[in-house]
């Protein structure tokens, strides 16, 4: 059951497009000597931390299991 991973990857592609556009926007319209540089670095570091953690997680678990619908009572 790899579908959740595919959905996650699709989300990640959209996320990266928006994040890159936002970073480009900051670089283009930001001011020299202001806080945009530091905030962008923090944003990139946090994003990479989550993405790398999730990549490790995705590769470490077995996605071939099936969903157990009995937990919902049916």
């Amino acid at each position: 059951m790899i579908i959740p991973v595919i959905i996650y990857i699709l989300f990640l592609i959209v996320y990266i497009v928006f994040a890159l556009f936002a970073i480009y926007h900051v670089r283009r319209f930001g001011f020299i000597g202001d806080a945009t540089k530091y905030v962008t670095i923090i944003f990139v570091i946090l994003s990479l931390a989550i993405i790398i953690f999730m990549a490790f997680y995705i590769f470490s678990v077995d996605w071939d299991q099936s969903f157990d619908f009995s937990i919902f009572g049916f």
Partner: protein
Amino acid sequence: MTFQFLVSKMIKLERRFPGQRDEEATVLLARVHWFRFLGHIFLTLLLAIIWFVALLLLRAYLPAFLTGMWGQVFVLFSGAYFLFVLLFLFIGWLNYYLDVWIVTNERLIDIDQKSLFDRSVSQLSLRKIQNVRAEVKGILPTLLRFGDVDVESAGADVGRFSFRSIPKPFEVERKVLRLAQHVSEQVGEKEGVGTKSSAVRGGKNGLG
């Protein structure tokens, strides 16, 4: 405080903006008061809290959801969710931070950053300023010292420049007025000199 001192003090900030002319000095750079950004921070915190509440509820009422394939999907969803929250905060900050009002020794520039894909820039020459009005209305704006500044201009194309919720509006009003006065004095002097020289030239020509 003289005009030169004011300009030199502000130049020390070493802030340069895109499109700044070589001889242009930034005298003032104002943003919307941080209080206006608090709403976005609260919304971001609320999104994070919603995730924690969902986790607690699932642990309490449906612990089986956090194990097996459902648990894995939940972790995957959480990763995507926190990336979304992070981007939401970053774009919100970007919209707040890049929405600025710049006063230089030549013009006023109003950069209106409404969203990531909606940005407008308008500018007004200091020579065209007719009137500047500051207003602080309400309890919180009075306590936190922020308010609106309206700049009326002579040009029909711009009409009125409005800056909403900027810190220390009365101080900004004074600075803009002083700059506008200085620029109009300079223009007046130049025009005066220009008229004299042409009169002199005219005299010479008349005599010649």
